[in-house]
């Protein structure tokens, strides 16, 4: 009896401390979910540390689970115990979380900060608000890096160099999923850029893309983690390979590897925050307060000091400065820089939400052949 009472008392205590309010109606603890590594530390430096400085008594804990965020949030929701407050996900996952009712819908103009010149948040983010639940942070791109010492005197300038094993012999690395690869294959098989998704929606188009990929199948190392390609490039295993542009920036500028960037036909994608549904009002208020601060114009511009991903607000772009440690100008390393963005794709969320399962099954079957 006594034991039970003590147990209940301690449980009550922990519950109480968990929901103790810093300023009346907001929780004092946040669990933020992100990807770990350099990206997470850029978030820590650019938004979380300043936020905690402004709000003494608030603490933030990181959970590096963004890669499995959708599955875990679904499981938490089913168990009725959501332990995350703010979750960093790619746009495609945000759309799915929104579809499943697992993410809170956000009214950008009401709940996010306006630009310093008064432009409303929805205009400042513009088309990047791809879902009602999604608050974009950065624009990143999936693009190619190549070994400068292995390509001779003619460094590649077109994405089709990936399919040209005569001019650029050696292995290449591509992600072990159809997204992006199918688009590049069609583009290099003579399909016009505007028609790519119309073609890819047909069974013949999918076969065409796989046939084009088939011409280099024996020369491809398929990666599943973003760190693989920089590693393979550094080891000289491959002559060129696709990965996230920030990874290549780190390999080139921070580790001085002999790697060059091939920006042609880079695929833009977005990364941003969502707030899970089913939080207590106090936690939800805290999460919204944090989000409003963390996605304002200055904070997004600050993040670019630490990592070469473009801020998602138009008003942040002029504020992008120099790298915090290397002291180099960051603007030319942004995927959104006009010099780099001459030929780009935007990840087609709608298309892949529909066709992902179907094409992935074909792609995996093709890989296994």
């Amino acid at each position, binding site marked *: 009896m006594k034991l039970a009472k003590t147990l209940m008392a301690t449980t009550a205590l922990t519950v109480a401390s968990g929901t103790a309010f810093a300023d009346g109606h907001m929780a004092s603890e946040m669990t933020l979910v992100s990807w770990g590594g350099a990206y997470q530390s850029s978030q820590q430096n650019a938004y979380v540390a300043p936020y905690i400085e402004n709000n003494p008594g608030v603490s933030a804990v990181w959970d590096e689970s963004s890669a499995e965020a959708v*599955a875990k949030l679904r499981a938490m929701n089913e168990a009725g115990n959501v332990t995350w407050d703010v979750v960093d996900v790619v746009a495609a996952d945000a759309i799915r979380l929104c*579809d499943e009712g697992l993410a809170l819908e956000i009214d950008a103009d009401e709940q996010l900060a306006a630009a310093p010149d008064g432009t409303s948040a929805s205009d400042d983010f513009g088309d990047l608000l791809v879902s009602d639940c999604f608050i974009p942070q950065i624009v990143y791109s999936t693009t190619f890096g190549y070994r400068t010492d292995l390509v001779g005197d003619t460094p590649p300038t077109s994405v089709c160099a990936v399919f040209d094993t005569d001019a650029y012999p050696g292995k290449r690395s591509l992600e072990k999923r159809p997204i992006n690869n199918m688009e590049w294959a069609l583009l290099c098989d003579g399909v016009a850029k505007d028609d790519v998704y119309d073609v890819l929606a047909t069974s013949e188009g999918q076969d065409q893309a796989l046939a084009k990929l088939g011409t280099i199948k024996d020369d491809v190392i398929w990666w*599943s983690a973003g760190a693989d390609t920089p590693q393979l490039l550094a080891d000289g295993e491959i002559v060129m390979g696709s990965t996230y542009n920030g990874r290549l920036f780190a390999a080139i500028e921070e580790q001085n590897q002999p790697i060059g960037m091939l920006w042609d036909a880079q695929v833009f994608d977005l990364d941003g925050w969502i707030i899970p549904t089913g939080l207590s009002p106090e936690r939800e208020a805290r999460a919204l307060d944090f989000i409003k601060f963390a996605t304002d114009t200055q904070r997004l511009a600050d993040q670019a000091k630490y990592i070469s991903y473009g801020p998602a607000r138009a008003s942040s772009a002029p504020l992008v400065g120099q790298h915090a440690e290397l002291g180099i100008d960051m603007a030319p390393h942004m995927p959104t820089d006009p010099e780099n963005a001459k030929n780009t794709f935007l990840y087609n969320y709608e298309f892949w939400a*529909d066709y992902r399962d179907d094409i992935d099954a074909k792609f995996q079957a093709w*890989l296994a052949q």
Partner: protein
Amino acid sequence: MAEAMLAADGTPLKRSLARALRRQKLRALGLIAPLLLFVLITFIVPIASMLFRSVENEIVSNTLPYTVESLASWDADQDTLPSEDTYQAMFFDMFVAAEAKRHTRLGTRLNYETTGLSSLFRQSGRKLDDIADISYKPLEDLDGAWDEGETWYALMNARDGADTALMATQRARIARLTDTETNGVVNFAPDAEVAALLPLAAREYTAWAIFVATQDGRDPATRDPWEAVAPALLIDLQSADLGGYDGPHADLLRAAQAANLPVPNFTDAFADVDKDWGNPEPWATIQTHSGKYTGGYFLNAVDAQKTADGMAWQPENKQILITLFGRTIWMSVLIMCSCILLGYPIAWLLANLPMRQANLLLILVLLPFWTSLLVRTSAWKVMLQQQGVINDVLVWIGLVADDNRLIIINNQFGTIVSMTHILLPFMILPMYSVMQTIQPSYLRAAKSLGATNWTAFWRVYFPQSIPGIGAGSILVFILAIGYYITPEIVGGTKGVFISNRIAYHISSSLNWGLAAALGTILLAAVLILYWAYDKIVGIDNVKLG
């Protein structure tokens, strides 16, 4: 006849003995009860509930109850569209589902079966208000009172008698749709007279009232209902006989009936929302997958699919899972065999070397065992890649040309090598513990009776070590069959296992039903192999130490 033997207290000995035994058994059960409960709650129940997902399919009928009912009489083979009634049912189902934000979830579910349904549901959900407005706007223009929530509440709320059956069915409808309890207090009950006169409007209004009361915690008396009640009312008014009606707003109703306001043609309206609703295909998908339980996931798991005409194989360019099952089994057997071949001599050395050397060797076996799995797998990557240690050494000693380095990673070879290394301790340790118990004197006896070294080993030592091999093999095989991370890293395209697909469906495609079906099949395969092992070798012949 012999007297029954009596115990000291006078009861027959047999009964007394049985009672004592029973007490003993209960006490034993009591002792293991905590563990039993723990295993049951933390292991068996979650696994069972996960496996149950492989057949569970309530989402379709929970989200679209009236559509499913109406589709039951439609013949998908006729290549005709469903009737207007079905489209109408779909509108009301989908409207409530969209308010509860459940229609997109259903879209995701049905997209596993027919590509394109995900965006079809997502986009249709946004445009349902447009269909409702076909009736809502004219009704509102006719009389501003229809824009007031109070008008509707006064019309619908019970006066003399409430329709409790309608209330109960709508409570159940919202409960199934939102997957929550809806037993809370609702400040509304549908009036029996109005429910008989205006069945559709009463149904939709009741659903709305229950929804706002139980989900949003608002009072329906003061809120404006969903626009969908307007088309429902006008549909009812087309055939309602208002002659005997003298309840609240009788004049409003008569005016609306007399005005003959437009009712949406739902078939055309849906085709306007998205032309795909004008095809039989999405309807056939809904009909085929409308059951509460489905074998569809199991069919998908073996490269088949459930269609309107029954089972059919997947198109050849999508068949992969059977291949992966086969590959998982035979590669696991190969890994198990190479573990036996490599592990047996080491276990023998461990058991027969003097204590000091044996301990050193044991540490060498255990050290990698204690190292993280990821570290060991990554180390193999460094070893095996084309610019890696092994290739560098081979090139250096001139066995391999520099421009013709061996490809020993990102294929089946890479998976087999690294998994054999990683699983080797699981083979060596049971073998070692069995070999330790084999008396050296048996071998000496065999030799003193004239056996050669080989005969002594093969006829005397080896048979005694079989239980160790059996235990090690079962351990290694069962571990190998579920391996995921190592094949993912070093397996390339041809060295991956079925567990990689399970992981994909759990965390990427979110098709948990298919993942559960794949997992169930894998579990069944392991149990069948275990049973076969028991029949052939005998499970009593397995010793873990």
